Structure formats: C-alpha cells, structure tokens
C-alpha cells in the first residue's frame, strides 16, 4: 500500500515536473533567454521566500488544514526582531536576530495551535482571524512603517553566494546567502518528516486522526508543535524577505498566502490531509515562480499573469478528478492510498 501511495504521489510530481519543462522550453523557444544564467539565478532568488512559506503551508495542510496566517506572522515577527535589534544596539552575528524573530514567530504560532487544538475549529477560519489580529497589531498598535535594516542584517544581505553575469546581454544576477537558509530548512524538514516518528505522526494525524491516536501518536502535541514550528519558519521567511530587499516593508507581506497554497496543491498536497511531499512543494513553487517571473520573457503581457495563475491552479487541482474519470480502478486505488 505504501509503495503504491509513493508511486501515485510521484506521478503528481512527475506531471508538475513535465509542465515545468514544457513551459521552460516554450519560454526558451520564444525568447531565447530562459536558460540564460542570470534568469536561472533570478528564479532561484525569487523562489527563496515562497519556498520557505510553502513548508509552513505544507506542514499545516498535511496535518490539519490550510494555514493562511504565515505572511502576517512573518511580517510581525520580523518587525519585532528588527526593532529589538535597533533598541539594544546589537551588532553581532546575524543569526541572533533570526533567533529573536523565531521566538516571536513561535509565540504567534502557539496562539494558532492553541485555538485549533483546544477548540477543534477549522484552521482556515482560525488563521484568518489571527492574521487579521496580527495585521492590526503590526499596523495599528506598532504603526510599522518601512525602515532600513540594522547593520548586522545589512552585512548579511550584501553577502552573495554566487554572482553571474550574462555575456550576451550584460545583465547580472546574484544569489543571496539566504538561499543556504532555504536549503537547511528543507534538509531538516526532509529528515524530520521522513526519518523520525514525529514526522510520520504528522502524516498520520492528517490521514486519520482517530487511527493515529490509537496508534499511539499524541495528536494534540503534534498538532500544536506543527503550528509553533510554522510560526518559526514564517519568521525566518519574513527576515529573509527583508534581508533580500534590504528594507523592512510592512505592507508587502499580506496576500502572498493564496499563491503559496496554490503552489503546494499543485505539488500534490491534498486538502483532505495526510498527503503531500516536500519535493512536490518545491516543484509547485518553482512552477508558479516561473509563471510570475518569466511569462514576460515569453512575450505575454503582465495583464494575463493572474489568468494564467488561476488557470494553472484550477487545472492542477482538477488533475485528481481527471485521473479518476480516466481510469475508474486507478481512481479507487487513489482513494485507498489516501486512507492508508
């Protein structure tokens, strides 16, 4: 059963991968600039924040349900971290600022987790409520405005992992150090989800809560823990975003959640819980980043961007239904795999 499930999940990812390749070839054929080194680095660069958010969205989706509060957790916790850094005049290594941000992110995530675990409300409604609350705190109570970053983060932001320049066009592009953070987060998440009992628990409670409880998983603790960790990852993503734009921009965060959720759904995560992989979530993010970044290269006007994103989401989410229609027996197996 597990083999079958893996195979089927691989199929979703395989299709996303094929779409990515076809899209890349199309853009390359029309513009000749897709596989240029600066464009590739640009895409990698713009993937960093959405891919970090995607981990939050994936963990929430697999175990409980949609979480839409991560952009505002990111905004509020990175704001607090930056303000505290200014307040204390701290000028040491950058990761201390990240730790401060993660602490506040964890607190906000804990609020989400507490309400969802204690009252068993739908996570979509709860996180909509809390993100509204955080937005009010950020813009109303703190009156956050755009501001420069502290020195320690500025130094971190100006370090580059690699720089490339396109010989033909003379356009250059740089990959910031935050890319390493992305890799580290994915490696940790991959290891925990695949090789530890807690990681299996995340999938188990999403698949079937009661069975997971009977099997000895502490459903409440795991669920609460997921939201705390989501808060921490969101804080990291928020700080990465600020570091990469070299400024703190409080109003730039909100509104990103829907595209991220779309990305992980394209990558094969199911709304019903229990299904979804990090690979799929990276591929889905890559696909949507390509659409937003490179459609213009293919000569398609920016006006059409939303139509494309909407279309891709609808087609992507309809794939399971189409598979079901194409082969009745295979469709049934999908259902069985889900419940396993």
């Amino acid at each position, binding site marked *: 059963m597990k083999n079958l499930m893996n195979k089927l999940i691989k199929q979703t990812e395989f299709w996303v991968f094929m779409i990515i390749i076809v899209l890349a070839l199309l853009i390359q054929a029309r513009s000749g600039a897709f596989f240029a080194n600066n464009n590739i680095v640009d895409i990698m660069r713009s993937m960093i924040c959405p891919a970090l958010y995607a981990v939050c969205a994936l963990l929430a989706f697999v175990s409980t349900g949609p979480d839409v509060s991560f952009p505002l957790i990111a905004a509020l916790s990175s704001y607090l971290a930056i303000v505290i850094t200014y307040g204390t005049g701290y000028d040491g290594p950058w990761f201390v600022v990240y730790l401060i941000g993660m602490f506040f992110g964890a607190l906000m995530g804990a609020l989400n987790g507490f309400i969802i675990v204690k009252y068993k*409300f739908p996570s979509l409604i709860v996180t*909509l409520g809390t993100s*509204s609350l955080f937005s009010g705190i950020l813009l109303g109570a703190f009156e956050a405005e755009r501001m420069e970053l502290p020195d320690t983060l500025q130094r971190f932001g100006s370090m580059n992992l690699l720089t490339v320049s396109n010989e033909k066009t003379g356009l250059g592009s740089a990959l910031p150090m935050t890319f390493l953070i992305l890799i580290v987060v994915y490696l940790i998440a991959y290891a925990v989800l695949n090789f530890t009992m807690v990681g299996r628990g995340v999938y188990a409670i999403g698949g079937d809560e009661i069975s997971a409880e009977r099997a000895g998983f502490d459903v409440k603790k795991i669920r609460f823990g997921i939201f705390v960790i989501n808060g921490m990852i969101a804080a990291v993503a928020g700080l990465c975003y600020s570091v990469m734009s070299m400024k703190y921009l409080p109003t730039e965060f909100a509104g990103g959640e829907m595209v991220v959720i779309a990305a992980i759904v394209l990558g094969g995560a199911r709304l019903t819980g229990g299904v979804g992989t990090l690979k799929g979530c990276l591929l889905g993010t890559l696909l949507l980043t390509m659409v937003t970044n490179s459609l213009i290269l293919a000569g398609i006007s920016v006006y059409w961007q939303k139509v494309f994103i909407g279309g891709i989401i609808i087609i992507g989410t309809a794939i399971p239904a189409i598979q079901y229609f194409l082969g009745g027996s295979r469709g049934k197996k999908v259902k069985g795999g889900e419940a396993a």
Partner: protein
Amino acid sequence: MKKLKTMDENVLRLTILLFAFLLIAGVTKGDSFLKVSIFQTMGKQLSEYGLMAVGCGICMISGGIDLSCVYVANLCGIVAGLLMQKSGFPIWAAVIAAIVTGAACGAFNGFLISCLKIPAMLATLGSYQLFQGISVVISGGSSVGNIPKAYSAFGSVTVMGIPAAFLVFLAIIIAMSFFMGKTVFGTRIYLVGTNAKSAMFAGIKNKTILTGTYMLSGLISGCAGLLSLARINSAKADFGTSYTMQCILIAVLGGVNPNGGFGSIPGIAIAVLILQMLSSYLNTFPDISNYYRDSIWGIALIGVLIINFTLEKRKTARQAKMN
C-alpha cells in the same frame, strides 16, 4: 424543529447584542453617532459587503466556502461599467449582462466543485485569481470610470431617507430568507451541508444543489458589484480585497457553521449591521487608527467561535443530564 429553535436563539442573541451596542454607542457618542447622515452612509457601505457575505454564507451552509465573491463582484462591476460607457447601450441591458456574468462565474465555481470534485476552498481560490485576471485584462488594469449619470444617480438616491442601495440589500435578504427557509431547494442546501453522503442517499441531486448554490452566490455578488459601481462611480479589478475576510467573519458571526449545515440569512443580516456599526463607531474616534479594526475583527471572529462552542457544549451537557 430543534434546528429551527437553535437558529432562532442565535438570531435573538445577535439582536440583543445589536441593541446593547446601539445603547452604548448612543450613550458614549450620542451627538456624533446617532445622526441620519451617518446611518445613511452605513446603509450604503454595508449593502455591498453584506450581499457578498450572504453569498459566501449560503456556500458555507452548503458545506463549502466561496472566496471569489469579491472578485466576481468586481468583474461584474467592470462588465457593467464597460458596457455603459458605450453610447447607445441601454443601462438595463448592462445591468442584466453584469448579473448574468455573476451567475456564470458562480456556475463555473459550482461546476468545479460539484462535477470535478475540487474542494470548494481550492476551487474558489483558483477561480478568484482567474476572475481577477479577466477583470485586469478587460479593464486594461485601470479603473473603469465615466459611468452615465443616469446610473450613478442610483448611488445617491434615497427613498424616505433610506438609501436605495440599502433597500436592494433588504429586498435580497428577504428573498433569500424565504428561499433558504421555505423552499425545497433551500432545505436541500442545508441537508447537503449537514451530510452530503446521506443527502445523496436520500435522493437529492447534490451536483444540481451545489451548482445552484454557487450560481446564486455569484448572482448575489454580481448585485453587490453593481451597487459599488453606483456608489463609487467606478470599478476596479482589485477593489475591496479585504472584504473576503470580512465576509467569512460576518457569516460566522451570523451563526453559520463553517463545517456546513447551520446558519440563517437573518443572522447574517444582523451580523452585517453589528459590524458596520462597530466600524462606524470606531471611526468617530479620530485617534484610533483604522488598522485597529483588523485586530478587532480578528478577535471578534475567534471570540464568537469560542462563545458559540462553549454555549453549545453547556447545552449538550444539560441535555445529557436531563436524559
């Protein structure tokens, strides 16, 4: 019968809350709050998102959700605005075209949800991007203005001091209350929302019901788009993006169960009134930033959920004791 009773209780609770709030507002800010002009502005504002909340609410009653209300409304406003700009195009035809657009958008959602079995949240998540994209494409990304005077006058017309927009809202509320409470189709929406599987075995055609529900939601959102076109004299692809959250909040505040099956239209209507009064009341304090409203709404949403949860729990405990 029992379901009916709990629904009434919720409406009663909300009505008491509404009057209590009016009393507090009247005592603390009587001179600047209890004015006809303020109530007229409130009437105009609340009818737009109030209608979207009704649309979203019936989808939630049917066990789904509609995140695309706001964008359907914008699309309809843009369609109507563009048609009205053409000289010689009758206004009534533009209005009908907009409403048909709304119903078509809703039917598209319904098709995705009932026939392709995409979870409602994801389907409307994708379709709202699509609708917004179409709005951007047909409007060229800028706002559609130059609305004929004959139509935009509707935004400022009052009948005996009541804004016409509010009368439209009221009419739709009454029609929908009747539809959801008294007709077969309405009852079936509740049944499908309570338990889709048993509804199916009871011989209800779930696909028809769901498609109808989302179509209705799109139609109501279309009316909301027409109202805002009249009020602000223009339509834009990204107008009122914060309304989505507000609509869900209103529906939940009005007693709609996010899991489906429970809720009533009068409850939603009273919740709209409460929210609009709260926000107008806050506006009378100049030193409270508008952004605080976000926080208050967030707290209200979760607070109401928790209160409903506790009341429900206490009631079941009481019933268990009696048995």
